[in-house]
């Protein structure tokens, strides 16, 4: 447990860091205006329904939102400007996704940190107290004898 604990933890951290890097550097195909509009609609909260995005809702207000998104994109606004357009009128609650993508990584970081702390604590508690006395069976001679006996037993 002690021998594999640290490499496992380091490996997990390295793998996660690699994933983050791949996600961040992955080239994304350019979206059409309709795809952009659909993506923005999926990120905006429908103003007159509970927990639905503008893309999912059938209300007249959601339809008005979708029209406004399409008009703004057609007028040359960037998706970021379109989102800001709605935030400026409604406030931050109109966004279904947090504006800072780092927020997504906070729970993952908390879990990794928690596992690391737990592993560290377990390793520390389980580690036998250091003492001058050598535990039985740790000398080379004793080990050789154990090997011998196992081989005899197998044979």
């Amino acid at each position, binding site marked *: 447990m002690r021998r594999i604990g640290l490499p496992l933890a380091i490996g997990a951290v390295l793998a996660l860091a690699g994933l983050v890097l791949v996600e961040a550097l992955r080239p994304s195909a350019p979206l059409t205006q309709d795809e952009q509009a659909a993506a923005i609609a999926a990120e905006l909260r429908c*103003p*007159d329904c509970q927990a639905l995005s503008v893309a999912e809702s059938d209300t*007249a*207000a959601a*339809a*008005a*939102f979708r*029209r*406004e998104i399409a008009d703004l994109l057609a007028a040359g606004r960037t998706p970021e400007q379109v989102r800001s357009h*709605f*935030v*400026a*009128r*409604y*406030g931050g*609650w109109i966004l279904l996704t947090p504006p800072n993508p780092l927020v997504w990584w906070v729970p993952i970081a908390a879990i990794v940190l928690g596992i690391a702390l737990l592993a560290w604590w377990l390793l520390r508690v389980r580690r036998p107290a250091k003492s001058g006395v050598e535990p039985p069976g740790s000398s080379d001679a004793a080990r050789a004898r154990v090997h011998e006996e196992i081989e005899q037993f197998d044979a």
Partner: protein
Amino acid sequence: MPGPPRRRLSLGWLALPVVLVPLGWLLFAGLGRDPREIPSPLIGHPLPTLEAMTLDGDAFASASVAGHPIVVNIWASWCTPCIDEHAVLLDAADAHPELHVVGVIYQDTADGARRFLARYGDGGWPNLLDDNGRIAIDLGVTGPPETVFVDARGIVRARHIGPLTADVMATLLSGIGVSP
């Protein structure tokens, strides 16, 4: 050995209240908040420009009422709380000639809105048609009734969600310089 090991254990326990007390405080503080209260980014900023056709077929621009305190009321004929609120608006418009009321008809037909006014009283103020919902978006409307209070300098001072009562109306009017 009552020395170091004991001290280390008690320091470890420090982490528990350090995490739990702020978490508990956050949850407790949330109890006092009204989940229906949505802060409006409009407050403290100029009223967005309103330009639309009115129910009577006239062109309206908010520039025409600049320099006056304005109450922008978002309503619909299908909105039941709007009925009681309408009487409050009529009273306020009667009592304060310097006040300009502007109605915005939300997700409604012109015929439905006309029937509502014929039944509950037409204050004679402009009621804007918002067929594409753009005015509602510009005002950050979530659903009628909603009312925006604008002072004579054109700055939004308050936004009320839900029907106005006479008391709420008086308080919010004084906030835009209209005293009883």
